């Protein structure tokens, strides 16, 4: 049984049909790449799945339909995400950033807990920081670290929620080649430990190099899907990326 299923996810922004019924299955521990030209709907797909934009269709995680749930409930159920621009909690330390996503009692319980002792540091926080080699930054304020570190902290914060699936929105954007390769190794390691990943990125080397399965979007629809080696040679993908004209696109079988 697939762990995560997006079924005919559909998004309209005013007159723009941004996602035209995209379906996608992800198994536990699978690393799936989602690529496509600018404006293809990759970020919109993440927004729709994690509950940040109203969408048609169904989102199912571990057999539970989350389509009607608000974003924070989906996160608690195991759908984590990162953002293109990092979006850290700048007023908190790096460790506190992770702690926020590690523990989420209901707000009433949290209100009750304010009368008790201060919470003990969560083991998962230190573990996630170590896994991404961020241990030395634990007590740094989040606004004081470098852009590359911010991206990694974003991933670590998603990991700290002990999610089933993490949707990563361009985690390698703004990283240099070495940093990007390092990030790739970290992500592969995360997937190998059983957490599924959906990776949106423009770094083709990274996506095709580490993913088990790649899905290609164009104009809000899936135009190809399969193992990286297969997708790399798909004529539809080549024409989408190289901007071929209609004639060669028809010749490519569309």
């Amino acid at each position, binding site marked *: 049984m697939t762990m995560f299923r997006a079924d005919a996810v559909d998004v309209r922004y005013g007159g723009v049909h941004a996602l035209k019924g995209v379906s996608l299955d992800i198994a536990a521990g699978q690393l799936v790449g989602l690529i496509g030209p600018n404006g293809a709907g990759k970020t919109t797909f993440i927004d729709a799945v*994690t*509950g*940040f934009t109203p969408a048609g269709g169904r989102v199912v995680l571990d057999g539970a339909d989350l389509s009607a749930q*608000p*974003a*924070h409930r989906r*996160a*608690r159920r195991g759908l*984590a*995400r990162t*953002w293109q621009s990092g*979006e*850290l*909690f*700048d*007023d*908190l330390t790096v460790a*506190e*950033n992770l*702690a*926020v*996503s590690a*523990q*989420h*009692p*209901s*707000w*009433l319980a*949290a*209100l009750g*807990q*304010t009368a*008790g002792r*201060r*919470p003990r540091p969560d083991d998962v926080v230190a573990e996630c920081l170590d896994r991404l*080699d*961020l*241990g*030395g*930054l634990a007590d740094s*304020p989040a*606004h004081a*670290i470098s852009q590359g*570190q911010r991206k990694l902290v974003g991933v670590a*914060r998603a990991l700290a*929620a002990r999610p089933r699936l993490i949707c990563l929105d361009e985690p390698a954007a703004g990283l240099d080649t070495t940093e990007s390769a*390092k990030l790739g190794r970290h992500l592969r390691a995360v997937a190998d430990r059983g957490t599924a990943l959906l990776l949106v990125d423009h770094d083709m080397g990274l996506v095709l190099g580490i993913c088990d399965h790649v899905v290609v979007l164009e104009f809000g629809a899936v135009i190809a899907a399969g193992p990286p080696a297969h997708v790399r040679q798909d004529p539809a993908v080549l024409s989408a990326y190289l901007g071929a004209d209609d004639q060669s696109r028809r010749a490519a079988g569309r």
Partner: protein
Amino acid sequence: MPNLLLFALLGLGQGALIAAIALGVVVSYRGSGVINLATGAVAMVSGYAFWALTSGFFGVTCPVPVAFAAALAVALVVGLAVEAVVFAPLRHASPLARLAASLGVLLTLQAGVLLIFGNQPQQEPSVLPAGAVPLLGVTIPVDRFLLAAIVGGITVLLAAGYRWTRFGLATRAAAENEQAALLAGLPTQGIATVNAAVAALVAGLLGILAAPIIQVDSTTLPLQVIPALAAALLAGFSSLTIAATAGVLIGVGQSLLYYLATQSWFPTDNGNALPGMSQVLVFGIIVVALFLRGAGLPTRGEVAERRLPAVPASERLARPALLAAAVAATALVVLPYDFRQALTNSLIGAVIVLSYVVITGYLGQISVMQLALSGTAGFLLARLAGGHVPFPFSVLLAATAATALGVAAGVSALRVRGVSLAVLTLAAALAIEQALFLNTSFGGTSGLGVSSPRLFGLDLGPDGPFRGLDGKQPSPVFGLLVLGVAVAAGLYVAHLRRTVLGRQMLAVRANERAAAAAGVNVRGVKVAAFAISSFIASLAGTLYAYNYASVSSVRFTALAALGLIGFAYVGGITTVSGAVIAGLLSTEALVPHALETWFGIKGTWALLFGGVSLVFTLVGNPDGIAGAHHRRKEAAKYAVRTTVPATGETA
């Protein structure tokens, strides 16, 4: 029916003033992105200047045209000075910081006027012709029509100017996207300055012209900015025509309310028409405007945004708390009676400011309503104590009921945030002050007696039997009671920063989307913060009631609330120590009392000092006094730490 028409047309005068202030608000928002709460205060300043010059207040009596020109010049100078000294340095600060800065300007101008002219309302000579015209059976003073026509003319002129001139195009470009305008080579600061001048001139002009109709005073005029904000919100802070029209209509509506209040069917309160309905009307309009326009204001492509001040988590709480409590307890017994009273006032002030630490410091939202909740709790306590509910229960009941009101308000305003929330709660504070506190069935200005708290036969009130070293009232026992509450509230708020909920509040303050993605229930956290803040504010309200043995509306006005927010910013709005400093600085507290006793410096000077230091705190030192101290400590720590290589980069 003729009467209805009469009142509607009479309202044109008030409406013209509101419309002019609304025009000023919209123009300065479009010019620089500042919601300028001080726009009404500029009208007040020019009104007073005109009155002073024509009445010989400064020893010379100018002819009306000269005084008119001079008063306009004063408005222009004030507008330009404020832009240069306050808003220009804050161009890259957060919208909330700039709103608070404009609040500082309002407080400064108001205190300045109080110092120079006193608090007596003045009757200004009229510039406009005094005749009256008969119309459909009623006689209307001609100046109402003239005022409306003048504002209409200004609106058409401005709208045309912004539509068709090159400067207007530049202003619209900067309002749409300041960053892009800057990159396109537009002098955005110059644009902001010219717009500030236009705003000051329009508000100043009507301050001179319309003031004879509504008297010149230092409370009503600055607060005319609230109906003006309602009009500006309806106009989406962009359309001058809608803003002016809405402003005039609000004035007409308020005037009609005066008429309706004379009708037999109008609800009454002890024989008088229900008070405060016109403020409730304005509040309702703001609610409707926010509903129609969406909760947000039009955003600008800002050049940069400075973050809110940092919120340090304290490692140790018990020791500093014990130390402070011991010092305060000793002082309560040893100090002479007047200083004892001032210290007690300071402690109550600190408790109220703690409620702002939670809502503004931790959650990042400004709610002006908190002091109104204190007042509600105070009046409820007076009613409950009058109904023979015994001491600790009366306080808890009153505080819980007021908290429920605060939470209900918070829940209904969940979608509103930032500057919109500040405007909404400011209108709510004024509506509560006028409609609830001035309603004699609930509150009243004359003061509602509150008997001292008694526990097991012991009098804990200010008139208790134990009298301190000098043997005078107030009893230090009441001070100790207040101290106990203050220490408990302070410890709780400091501890809150270290708890899961405190972390979640800061996460919400930093980034609501990212907080939701991390599984934080953003709305729930906001409700919790409103509940905590409201309860603390309500507790302080009951202490106020016991402190003065009576509750009256004057302590809980919207203006007093604005002043407290100012002191909170100056002390440091994100920390408990900042709240303590704010408490010491607040009205009738230790610092102003000491200044008055030793140096003869009046409380009004303290208000002026509060306004000025609020502005300079925001411009130069956004973390406040307490925050600056903490930052120096951190910097020292950081300097040591960075000598060790950062391990994150070595892999």
